[in-house]
């Protein structure tokens, strides 16, 4: 059975595309057949993060308009056998995406026996974001521990509970997961940043992952290698844990507490 997972947040710049790329790689590295789709029509970026920008010939809108087949538009990843990318179109036409078109593509992916389809949502609550979540079975809500991100994601939770196919049909609801990114254990410890428990309490969601703030994320996007593939990075370990939890494993949270420092270090700083 194909599971459709939307990666969403409301606010921009919190790490949706980074998360989509890494979770897709993580699932594929465990043998799952995965497609990751960029829903940010007009502002294509997932291809850059995945490092396949020069291999984009056809895109999502081409498939919807019947200008090519889905097979022609799916870009096979060079690192992972079972991973495919569907790039966003660069068109400025706002109505390029249609619910019918998106559903047809998803149905075809189902028929091709994909295990997971990740929908990388654009920021905001406009059409692209709406269609990215509309057919989802599950949602990963990416949140920074910061007031505007938390508030916007609560708005997204409201939409997930009302404006999705599952919700409208009365056939249950989208399963929601919280993924915290840019988390700084040090700043949480000093009371400058809301912690996992704070955000969890406000939003009332289960936590699927906590990704620490790190310079590795920028290095990874510079190189076009999803950060989860940098095995020396804590960010990679955090995303691997998140993938395990998505697959139903119970894994304790890591990278949420600051390492304990000795008495003298605390007294004199540094």
């Amino acid at each position, binding site marked *: 059975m194909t599971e459709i997972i939307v990666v969403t947040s409301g606010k921009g710049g919190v790490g949706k595309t980074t998360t989509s790329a890494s979770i897709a790689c993580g699932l594929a590295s465990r043998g799952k057949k995965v497609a990751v789709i960029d829903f940010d029509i007009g502002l294509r970026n997932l291809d850059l993060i995945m490092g396949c920008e020069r291999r984009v010939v056809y895109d999502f809108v081409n498939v919807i308009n019947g200008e090519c087949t889905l097979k022609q538009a799916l870009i096979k990843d060079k690192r992972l056998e079972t991973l495919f990318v569907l790039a966003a179109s660069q068109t400025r036409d706002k109505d390029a995406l249609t619910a019918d078109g998106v559903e047809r593509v998803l149905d075809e992916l189902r028929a091709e026996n994909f295990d997971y389809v990740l929908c990388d949502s654009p920021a905001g609550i406009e059409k692209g974001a709406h269609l990215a979540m509309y057919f989802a079975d599950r949602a990963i809500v990416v949140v920074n*521990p*910061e*007031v505007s991100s*938390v*508030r916007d994601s*609560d*708005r997204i939770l*409201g939409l997930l509970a*009302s404006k999705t196919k599952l919700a409208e049909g009365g056939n249950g609801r989208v399963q929601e997961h919280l993924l915290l990114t840019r988390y700084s254990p040090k700043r*949480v410890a*000093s*009371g*400058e*940043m*809301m*912690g996992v428990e*704070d955000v969890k*309490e*406000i*939003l009332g969601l289960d936590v699927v992952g906590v990704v620490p703030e790190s310079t590795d994320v920028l290095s990874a996007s510079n190189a076009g290698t999803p950060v989860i593939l940098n095995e020396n990075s804590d960010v990679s370990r955090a995303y691997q844990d998140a993938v395990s939890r998505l697959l139903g494993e119970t894994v304790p949270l890591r990278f949420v507490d600051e390492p304990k420092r000795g008495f003298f270090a*605390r*007294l*004199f*700083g540094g």
Partner: protein
Amino acid sequence: MGLLDFFRRQPPSAQVAKERLRIIVAQERGARGGPDYLPLLRRELLEVIRKYVNVDPEAVVINLERDQGHEVLELSVALPEKIQAAKAAAAAAKS
């Protein structure tokens, strides 16, 4: 954190953030799912009421409750105490 910082510690800003979010999120969740015209209805009702009584903008509360099959629009207006007292006095003088 150095020794000096220890003595001039301020209330943690994360606590402030959490408190603010708790309030705004609860408020926005309450308004969610209701029809889009509710805020406008509230404002227009307030304007009409204010023609007669000078009430506080916060004094008009509109709630929409859903039961099976029907919806109840509940409107409550808290009148300022002074006016109520004045009216009571006027009523007492009449009788």
